[in-house]
């Protein structure tokens, strides 16, 4: 059964790219463009992995992450954080908030695939 990946990303082109890459590698990818909608989708879809953009409309990526980590049901859900800012400060904050992996935009497709595989394999 294919792993279910929930991608919360407001840039449609980037979402399309990730959807294509992970889909080609056997994942079922669901896309949400709003933080709040994305959080709701986690409960609904029960994904194996969440890929979360840092800057989101509705609710910021960091807030979504904190919400996931507070909920016992999703406390151990692997979450990959995506950011275009690429600043160390964001990475530290995300690590403290309990992020599983961190990916800086732009990324090499292969890195994305192997990071996702690592997260899915560990869970």
């Amino acid at each position, binding site marked *: 059964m294919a792993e279910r990946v929930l991608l919360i990303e407001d840039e449609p082109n*980037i979402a399309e*790219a990730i959807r294509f890459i992970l889909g080609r590698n056997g994942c079922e990818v669901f896309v949400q463009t709003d933080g709040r909608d994305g959080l709701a989708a986690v409960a609904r879809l029960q994904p194996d992995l969440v890929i979360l953009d840092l800057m989101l409309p509705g609710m910021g990526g960091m807030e979504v992450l904190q919400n996931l980590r507070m909920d016992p049901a999703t406390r151990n859900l692997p979450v990959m954080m995506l950011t275009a800012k690429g600043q160390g400060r964001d990475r530290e904050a995300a690590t403290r908030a309990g992020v599983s992996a961190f990916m800086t935009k732009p990324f090499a497709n292969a890195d994305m695939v192997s990071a996702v595989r690592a997260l899915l394999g560990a869970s």
Partner: protein
Amino acid sequence: MPFNILVLSCLTYVAFLFLVAFVAERRSGRGTLDFLRSPLIYTLSLSIYCTAWTFYGAVGYAARSGLEFVTIYLGPTLVFVGWWWVLRKLVRIGRQQRVTSIADLISARFGKSNTLGVIVTIIAVVSATPYIALQLQSVTLSFGVFASDSPDGWSLPDHASTGAWVAAGLALFTILFGTRNLDANEQHHGIVMAIAVEAVVKFAALVAVGVFVVWGLSDGPADISAKIAASPIADWDLQPGRWTGLIFLSAAAVICLPRMFQVMVVENADEQHLARASWAFPAYLFGMSLFILPIAVVGLERLPAGANPDMFLLTLPLSEGQGALAMLAFLGGFSSATSMVIVESIALATMLSNHVVMPVWLWLRPASAQRGDLRWIVLLARRLCIAAVLALGYAYYRMSGGSAALAAIGLIAFAGVAQVLPALLGGIFWRGATRTGAAAGLGVGFAIWAYTLFLPSFGPGAVISAEVFAQGPLGLGWLRPQALFGTTGMDPLIHAVFWSLVLNTAAFLIGSLLTFPDPVERMQGAAFVNAFDDEVQTGPLGWTRGQAEPEALLIMAQRILGDDAALSFFEAEAAAQGKQGYLPDPTPDFVAALERRLAGSVGAATAHAMISQLFGRATVTVEDLLAVANETAQIMEYSARLELQQDELSRSARQLREVNEKLTQLSVQKDSFLSQISHELRTPMTSIRAFSEIMTEADLQPAEVAAYGRIIHEEAIRLTRLLDDLLDLTVLENGSVQLNLEMANLGQMIDRALAASCHIRPERSFDIQRTAGSEEVFLKTDADRLVQVFINLLSNARKYCDARDPVLRIVARQKGGRVMVDFIDNGAGIPKESQAVIFEKFARLSDEARAGGAGLGLAICREVMANLGGTITYLPGQRGAAFRVTLPLRLEKREAAGAA
């Protein structure tokens, strides 16, 4: 009695006095001063008020004018009983200021003015001259009385040469007595002791003659009373005006007479002695006056009609064959004369040497303040002054012919010294008294006294011609010497006293009120008037300027005080400073103390001048004080400048802090801007990279290739536009933008903008509402830039207006040389909290439709409008999003530059 025996007795008596003085001096040198410093000695020394005039003259006065002689005793009695507090204040001030004479006191009070010292000295010397002449006359007369009785031995020379011998003898005696050494504090214990002995002798002599007259020549007090009642003396009617005048005059004299001041203030050892003297001295005067009337009455009764009543004290015992009693009376008179002459000439010599000779000497030989022994100069000056004073007295005696009655001459002297009274009392009780006022009062009073009393005393025609007496100078009747301002019929003495003192006081008051005291005067005035306030800083002006070597000060002090006294003083001062040896630091306190100490020897003004010279200056003048004040002002100015600088510094620091904060803020903004740019650049780059990898790696359907290629292209354009915007913004912010000013039609520009923005979300159909008429206006501006702003606003409306049937109103208006164009849509508008930030860079409110750009649009619009001399603002309360663009109708280059 043989004249030679008489002379021998005098010499023996003088030798005895000398011995008394010498022993007293020795004892005071050893410090056994208890007896010398007793109130009794002080009171007895005050008895020099009773001179030969009082001794001999009072009897004559009584014989001529009845009880009027009592006024001479009443004045001092009233002062000592009723005005003792004035005397106490004088004594206190004298001790505090180490005053050496009345001239020194006046000089010190009015700012250490030597001019005033000189004026008072002149008044004192001129007034004292007839008084000393009086003593010469009485001694000469008494010699004459005895000599006329001598059949053999030395024959009495004529009166003139007797007077000369007496004057010379007295001068020698006084010089030997009074100037043996230069005391540090001008106290003469030996002389005080000698005059106390003389006071006892003259009292004893008068009482002895009185007892002889009452019980020897009469049958006791009852008989005498009957004789007095029967004599013409009892018929003398009392003249209230003259009595009042005389009582006042003698009261003034007892305060102002130089010799009285000398014994009362300068020689005073203890202020408490004054308390005893306040009753003991009046008692002495009472005793002295008790037998005057009996002697006068009996003398008039028993002696031939032509006999000089001034000599009754001698002629009565002689006529009764009482040689020994006559001798005692003679010695009493001799004592009265010598004690007065000694003290008076010492007082005058002190004044003359301190206020006239020494200043002149220092002025002639400025270097001598620092070099050479000054003590012998001071001593020599005093000796010469004593000789000069007696020579003047003798000259007056010769000029006035020696004929006038003793009492009349004495009253002239009293009236003269009384001129000092207004300045003296004003000086110690009124702080407003000034040097100018004192000088004016003294000058006016002295001049009137000389004109109305002193010069006329030589007799009509002697100094003032008879014509002036009768007609006034130049025929001005109101200036007649004895009828000033037409006041005829007054007693000449009372006339002179009245006018001189009234005009003196008036001049003193007016002069004081019209002038302003200089700083030294003010300080001294305060010290004098508030002499009883301990907290008031008394003593000489502090030395705050200049520098003097302690050695130089010591050398100068040695010259004036003597080696031992100077060394012990310096040693004590050094010890007080906690130093070993003889050289204290020249602190202001020490120099002030030294000046006080020197003032005791040479007077305040001279001491001040000498120390001034050591400090490199001639005198402390108003200019000096102004210089001090100026320096203070400079320091204050300097400190004000420092404060100003401090203010400037703190202002600079504040500015720096503000700039720093701004820079920090800018740095934060720059970091945030870079971070945002990074984000904006990375986002399209992410898509481009991902899809380009996909396209090179994967086997794709042609449709996919086309779609992904379009995405890459789209994102590349987005990147390019972002870079363009950034560059544009930088140029606009720097003000280095090149404006292309031209005339353009507003309507046409809006048309261009509408056409350029319609490709944004072309699926949405906008209802554009325009005010066609008001758009028909030509603007001088950069049309392309303005259109850029319009496009931006229209694009935003197309992108963000969420109304179902979107409507956009474009309203143009013209007002006061400016044009306003509003763009109002019917969407949700911008939330209030966001309105403030929409013009900031990267202030994109929502990441939803980002096709248009990276949130730089409105920031660019703001910069463009600033460059066009206009503004762009958000209009709240229009229901939809509403922007107003305002710009000038005619943009001039200067305005554009200014806006940048």
